[in-house]
């Protein structure tokens, strides 16, 4: 498992796509894009379209997993899941009482697909705490999940304006930089 995070417009998606494409080529595997976003308004639709345009250079099979992750068990290939922050907010809104079970399912999937999974997430823990308890709970859930993902990952990267810093991983992972 490879974990990649960064702020908005940090180049994390482009880096993650490059990682996935290199791995797919090396191991002769298809490319699978696990999309977590829900196009609930026009702006989100545009953001999704921009990501689709960026992926148009390669053959990607897109699987939408805004809540349930089961479809990912049935596919073989290099899976790029993007992104953890939208997925967590989706389940928090839809399942305010049982979100914990979904986090556990997410972790289970990660361990099951450890060999072929690339995970993208956002950095949003470097600001003044929110005065809204819900937002602070969201940040706490994400922080803990990120800690778990980094712990379980083979390689972990932080992207800052296109600069890639490797926090963890074998030297071979540097091939992607």
């Amino acid at each position, binding site marked *: 498992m490879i974990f990649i995070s960064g702020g908005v417009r940090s180049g994390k998606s482009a880096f993650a796509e490059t990682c996935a494409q290199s791995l797919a080529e090396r191991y002769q595997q298809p490319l699978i894009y696990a999309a977590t976003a829900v196009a609930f308004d026009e702006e989100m639709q545009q953001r999704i379209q921009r990501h689709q345009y960026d992926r148009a250079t390669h053959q990607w099979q897109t699987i939408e997993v805004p809540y349930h992750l089961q479809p990912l068990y049935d596919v073989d290939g290099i899976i790029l899941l993007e992104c953890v922050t939208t997925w967590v907010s989706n389940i928090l809104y839809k399942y305010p009482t049982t979100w914990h079970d979904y986090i556990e399912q997410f972790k289970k999937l990660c361990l099951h697909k450890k060999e072929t999974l690339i995970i993208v997430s956002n950095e949003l*823990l*470097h600001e003044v*705490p929110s005065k809204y308890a819900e937002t602070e709970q969201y940040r706490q859930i994400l922080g803990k999940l*990120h800690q778990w993902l980094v712990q379980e990952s083979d390689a*972990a990267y932080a992207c800052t304006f296109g600069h890639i810093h490797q*926090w963890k991983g074998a030297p071979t992972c540097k091939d992607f930089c």
Partner: protein
Amino acid sequence: MHFIFGGAYNGKTAYALSQVSGDYTVHTGFIPTTSDTPTIIIRHVEQCIQQAQDEVAEATRIMNALTALCTKYDVIVIGNDISRGVVPLDATQRFQRDCAGRLYQMLVQHATNVTQVWYGIPQTIKGE
């Protein structure tokens, strides 16, 4: 002095505790003047910031309290990095954020060891 910083919920306190041998006390958003234990851990040092006229003067006040403590005890200071978000609408939060930046600059300069923690991974910024 050992200064540890990083984002919220990143495992900073767990890392601090892994560095301590012997007795310690943990304070949150508070700087004591004495202690019964040889090691003092101060979490959320950014919460020690009070509203003041001048951010540098306020940061200096906190820094002086920490420096005084260091003459008698092993001090580990933990601070949340709150410097990278959207500018807060609330003036109190803006002051806290600016002052924390000043304070952390002083801490990085004075501390023997400085560590940044990213989701449980420590990175030495200064020291061994």
